[in-house]
């Protein structure tokens, strides 16, 4: 058995950690928190220069031609560093969507741009609740799109939009929309994690082009989300790990009643629980990475397990890290809430835990019946 990443892949992780340690320190994340900027442009340009945006994109489309395993290594570090950039929207969603469902012409048109720093994202939800046909009012008629989508992660900054909409036949399909073209207006919304942005988008006769098979919109969204779930799980594991390390560091220097708080079992058990949750999440994420990189039919189950586990681990670690810090943890100037907020953001981006639990069991049922 060899259930581990290769030395080369780990080297990639180490160099990503070093790069992000320099360029996406918590000071940089805090600048994103305090400023009106929707993302850190210098960091994004640096990441594009490193070639990370095209990690899993074939060379013919301008990518580096490595695979998803390498991308997982980078994702873990993006999560650890809370990088304030549209990496998930552009790389795990838009790029994966094009690779999965794009025609050769669509890939040629968009992938080389995305790989060099253009931003892509998906616009699925229309307000609160789960996306489904009765909740989807945005419509494409005669090649133009009309309606309103929110929240769209990174919607105010993107170049390319992949929109779930009703077609002329009233079925749901995905469409490519040039976000810089005509008929697209954006309004920035306040999010729970101000280091990540979202927008409300209004489409007025925006030119739209079908992506993938007509009428397969929801199925495609789910297939893309299966990929993104694994990649996001690595980000969440990175964030959970960083939260745990922060809690440990604080507990090892804070004294109450003449003792380090780290010496109290209440704190030891708390940190041990965070560790266990993070390691289980890491292992589930590894299995997801295997399924993703080998194109296994296990992916739907593996992705759901990875996502649920990772949401739980980051949720627990980020809130208990804050709790470990006592009053300090509840300050804006302290860094605990950066993790607490990001954990919530990541838990909501492609369907929440509740949604994925239902999906996990349905997938297991299906597998069992087969």
């Amino acid at each position, binding site marked *: 058995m060899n259930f581990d990443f290769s030395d080369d892949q780990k080297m990639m992780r180490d160099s990503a950690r070093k790069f992000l340690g320099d360029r996406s320190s918590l000071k940089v994340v805090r600048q994103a928190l305090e400023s009106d900027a929707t993302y850190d442009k210098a960091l994004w340009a640096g990441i594009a220069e490193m070639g990370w945006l095209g990690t899993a994109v074939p060379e013919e489309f301008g990518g580096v031609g490595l695979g998803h395993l390498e991308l997982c290594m980078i994702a873990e570090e993006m999560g650890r560093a809370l990088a304030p950039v549209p990496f998930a929207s552009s790389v795990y969603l838009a790029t994966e969507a094009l690779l999965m469902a794009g025609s050769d012409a669509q890939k040629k048109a968009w992938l080389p741009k995305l790989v060099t720093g253009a931003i892509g994202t998906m616009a699925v939800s229309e307000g609160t609740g789960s*996306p489904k046909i009765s909740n989807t009012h945005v419509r494409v008629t005669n090649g133009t799109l009309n309606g309103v989508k929110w929240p769209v992660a990174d919607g105010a900054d993107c170049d390319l939009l992949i929109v779930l909409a009703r077609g002329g036949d009233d079925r749901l399909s995905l469409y490519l929309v040039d976000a810089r073209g005509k008929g697209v207006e954006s309004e920035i919304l306040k999010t729970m994690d101000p280091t990540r942005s979202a927008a409300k988008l209004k489409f007025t006769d925006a030119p739209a082009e079908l992506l993938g098979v007509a009428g397969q919109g929801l199925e495609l969204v789910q297939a893309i989300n299966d990929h993104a779930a694994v990649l996001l799980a690595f980000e969440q594991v990175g964030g959970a790990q960083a939260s745990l390390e922060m809690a440990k560091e604080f507990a090892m220097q804070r004294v109450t009643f003449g003792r380090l708080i780290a010496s109290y079992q209440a704190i030891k058990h708390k940190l041990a629980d965070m560790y266990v949750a993070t390691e289980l999440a890491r292992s589930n994420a590894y299995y997801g990475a295997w399924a993703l990189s080998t194109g296994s039919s296990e992916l739907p189950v593996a992705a759901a397990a990875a996502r649920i586990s990772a949401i739980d681990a980051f949720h627990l670690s980020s809130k208990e890290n804050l709790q470990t810090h006592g009053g300090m943890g509840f300050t*804006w100037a302290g860094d605990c809430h950066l993790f607490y907020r990001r954990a919530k953001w990541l838990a909501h981006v492609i369907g929440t835990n509740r949604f994925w639990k239902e999906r996990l069991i349905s997938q297991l049922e299906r597998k069992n019946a087969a």
Partner: protein
Amino acid sequence: MDFNDTPEEAAFRAEVRSWLEANAPRKQNANESMRGRHSEAELLVMAKKWQAKKAEARYAQITWPKEYGGRGGTPMQQVIYNQEEANFLVAGGFFAIGLGMCIPTLMRYGSEADRQRYVGPALKGDEIWCQLFSEPSAGSDVAGLKTRAERDGDGWVINGQKVWTSGAHYSNFGIIITRTDPNVPKHKGLTMFYLDMKTPGVEVRPIRQVSGESGFNEVFFTDVRIPDSQRLGAVGEGWQVSLTTLMHERLAVGDSPGPDFDELFELTKMLELEDGPAIKNSAVREKLADFYVRGQGLKFTKFRTMTALSRGQVPGPEASIAKVVSASKLQDIASFGMELMEAGGIIQDKDLSPAAGLFQHAYLYAPGLRIAGGTDEILRNIIAERVLGLPGDIRVDKDLPFNQLKAGA
């Protein structure tokens, strides 16, 4: 057992209700609140007005003796009043620390002149009090505090720093616990005072909290001179005095304001999930049931505490249950409510977010409630040690003179 009001209670309730009807607007819905719609400064003005009205009608502190502006009423009457007031749109919250903790301490340890001078204005909302206990290196272990008070003629000079002081920025007075003798073990060298927040040398700096507001502060003391008449309790008895304050704190906190079962239930009726309305989803129903049971368990535990109170018994450390349950429950309800909103849950927008963003806001302030007034961990220790009688942790700091303890201890 009987949940109905006794005839006297029913009469009191009717009286309270008609007074409220005559003096305040009814809420349109249970969730309606002044917060969020007004700045803190505006709320403060409205709260002071309302407090003055209440004091005039003797509803401000129902259990306090009449001579201090109370009604000499029962704890049950106070509960009835609170239940009825909750249906009306009024501003409050600024006086809880003063009336719930500081003034009771002053009533017990202050002089008659102090009581005459301070109780009335606090009750009417003219003067607000804060609690200056915690310090950077003394929160859970508040007896580890370093702020010094040194004798100077017939007065004292205070130097040091307090932190996390709720409301210091709008408070007129505070009670402050200080170290007067570092040569004796930590609990023995403490003395309590009260002071005017405008005394020269007191500097208040607001601290922004995770939820964005600045509800608490750092307070610095540089050569602050106060007369000995502002001492509460004997020199070196500050710890015992603080226990009075903290016992009242346990009664005063405990509730965690914010979205509860009812708000979550409403939300599940509003939201559409992939398979239909959220309220029809069995996983959602199971969660709802869990929250309901936790909430009711708490409510009826409080009824038992109230019953004990109305029999004149002093509530013991078992009152710690309330905060341990309610703060985490709030965090969990807020988190789950957001989850049901799916992607839309990450937006914090009064107009777009369901319930005007109540769940999002609660998710950000709930962590503070798990820390303020005794952390979850400390409260569990209290339950284990003082309710269940389990042995305490081995203490290395208790008997050594304070100035021989390791730094930070």
